[in-house]
């Protein structure tokens, strides 16, 4: 199986779906490589290079460079989804939802319900997120709990190149609005990815490691932090299960609860701020549905309740570490009842 990057896996998914369905269009800043400049076409592919090469195959009518105008990007994509296209809108950094939130929150998320279940809005909003590039407080956030809170949206967060391709293909084929979030630190990660098309259903968690002592649930880059922590724990004689929900809406509660019935101990690793977070939601679900299974308090390992700092020393302290996950796991191992 070919080894390709997370970035290339996304590019492959976009290309395959654009070949399959002429209704798929890409809308965003620099997605076709910039327009109206003095350089060459199609050498850029957006700030992360994800869409490089697509305008060469599909043309500027389907790979549409826009001004920096997020309300119009998302709103136009939403209106086009309502009227028969299958747009993939690129928001660049997820932090920019601040300047287009109405089109997501009050418009596209609610159309199907408000209009009596009579419409489809097959829209994908792609955005990158997460800390680790010293990009400061307005380019580093994890806002998936915002989207997860909103009925009508689906929220998908891949952690590997394999999942990135299969989940993006599913997102494009899906008839509901999907917020597809890509962690900035994962674009260069490589992994085995089949060259043919495949779709990974939403709401199906991936169990990356099986262990009987403690369950660790993690998303995106934190999956890799959790896997490293699991290695460290194994060297101390503690076996961890690592679960990546892959989508937070819908959320695969059953896979988490099944694991908990064996381990009785839960650590949730979430790079976002802790208040009303996905970590809090998972903790609430477990407390409600699996109280009898719990042998110890649920532990959340999250960023602090602060904006993301700039200075590398501070940013490193902000991001949950494998050591913090190990400490939380050892803490819950110390409880009995």
């Amino acid at each position, binding site marked *: 199986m070919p080894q390709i990057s997370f970035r290339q896996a996304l590019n492959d998914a976009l290309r395959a779906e654009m070949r399959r369905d002429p209704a798929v269009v890409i809308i965003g800043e620099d997605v076709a490589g910039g327009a109206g400049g003095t350089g060459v076409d199609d050498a850029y592919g957006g700030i992360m290079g994800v869409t490089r090469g697509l305008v060469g195959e599909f043309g500027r009518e389907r790979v549409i460079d826009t001004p920096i105008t997020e309300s119009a990007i998302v709103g136009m994509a939403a209106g086009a989804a309502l009227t028969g296209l299958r747009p993939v809108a690129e928001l660049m950094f997820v932090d920019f939802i601040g300047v287009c939130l109405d089109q997501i929150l009050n418009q596209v998320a609610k159309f*199907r319900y408000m*209009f009596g279940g009579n419409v489809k809005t097959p829209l994908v909003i792609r955005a990158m997120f997460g800390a680790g590039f010293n990009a400061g407080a307005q380019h580093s956030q994890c806002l998936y709990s915002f989207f997860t809170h909103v009925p009508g949206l689906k929220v998908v967060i891949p952690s590997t190149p394999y999942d990135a391709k299969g989940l993006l293909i599913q997102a494009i084929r899906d008839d509901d609005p999907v917020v597809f979030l890509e962690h900035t630190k994962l674009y260069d990660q490589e992994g085995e990815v089949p060259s043919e098309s495949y779709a990974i259903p939403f709401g199906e968690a991936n169990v990356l490691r099986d262990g009987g002592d403690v369950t660790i649930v993690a998303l995106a880059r934190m999956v890799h932090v959790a896997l490293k922590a699991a290695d460290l724990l194994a060297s101390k004689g503690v076996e961890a299960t690592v679960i990546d929900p892959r989508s937070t809406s819908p959320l695969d509660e059953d896979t988490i609860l099944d694991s908990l019935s064996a381990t009785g101990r839960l650590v949730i690793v979430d790079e976002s701020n802790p208040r009303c977070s996905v970590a809090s939601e998972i903790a609430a679900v477990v407390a409600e549905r699996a109280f009898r299974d719990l042998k110890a308090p649920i532990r959340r390992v999250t960023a602090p309740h602060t904006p993301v700092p700039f200075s590398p020393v501070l940013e490193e302290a902000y991001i949950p570490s494998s050591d913090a996950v190990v400490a939380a796991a050892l803490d819950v191992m110390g409880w009995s009842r």
Partner: protein
Amino acid sequence: MHLSTHHLKRAYSTMRRIREFEERVNAEFAAGHIPGFVHLYSGEEAIAVGVCMHLEVDDYIGSTHRGHGHCIAKGCDTTGMMLEVFGKADGLCGGKGGSMHIADLARGMLGANAIVGGSPPLVVGAALANKTRRTDRVAVAFTGDGGCNQGTIFEAMNMAVVLRLPAIFVIENNGYGEGTGVDYAVGSKDIAGRAAGFGMPAVAVDGSDFFAVHEAMGAAVARARSGAGPSFIEARCVRFHGHYCGDPQTYRSKQELADARQLHDPIAAFRERVLAAGNLTEAEFSSIDEEVLRDIDAAAAAAHRSVPPSVSSLTTGVYSSY
């Protein structure tokens, strides 16, 4: 008068239908039969009808919180609308939308929109879909003078010009954004002039004059269908009711309120002009009036008779699959 008798009858009948619908909704609301918030279109009928007379069923419109007139002009069923406003199961949106969210995609009606300035970006998306599919269909964004100060419409207008989309922006300038006067709220005091700065044809017309609106829209539609890009129409009109049903309108003088219906009624003006030109007779107008009244009576009666949604529908229709 460049319209056929058939078209004149259709224009009058649609304006009349909007007026009767709105005045009935006003009465039913006052009697406590309609829940929620309602914003009435009376006084602005010439705009919706003058614009939508140029549209086919597969052209799109996006609307505002004051959307009943746009829905009727675009061909939505008035009984389905009345049931929706009453919150009944057989309403156009199953009772889940209400007055501010009536939509009918089969009629090209992309929804009333309760967010001021919410609809123009969506309409630009419908225009993009039309262009991508290589049709000559157009998409029309109705917004008010209040909405015209929102950044969303500036972004939408710029995008439509940049991508040369078949979009038409219609600003219904009724003088008030909620309770704040347009000359206070629009810094340049010239909405159409400001729109021209985006790089598209922009005109201001008397929105109480059906023929003026119809003519301006004819030029805008021809331009959009030919692939030449977007246009902008500011239609100045007078809102008969308050911002919402029940609005005490303390911000308008008694004289202004009295003058509204006396001096600025687009339906009376249409009737007078068409009668004077001898294109339609009093009897023809009266016959349309009676037919419309029968329909609205029937719609209201159906709304009273019909059942509310089943509580089991509360959680359906959020997603296509989940």
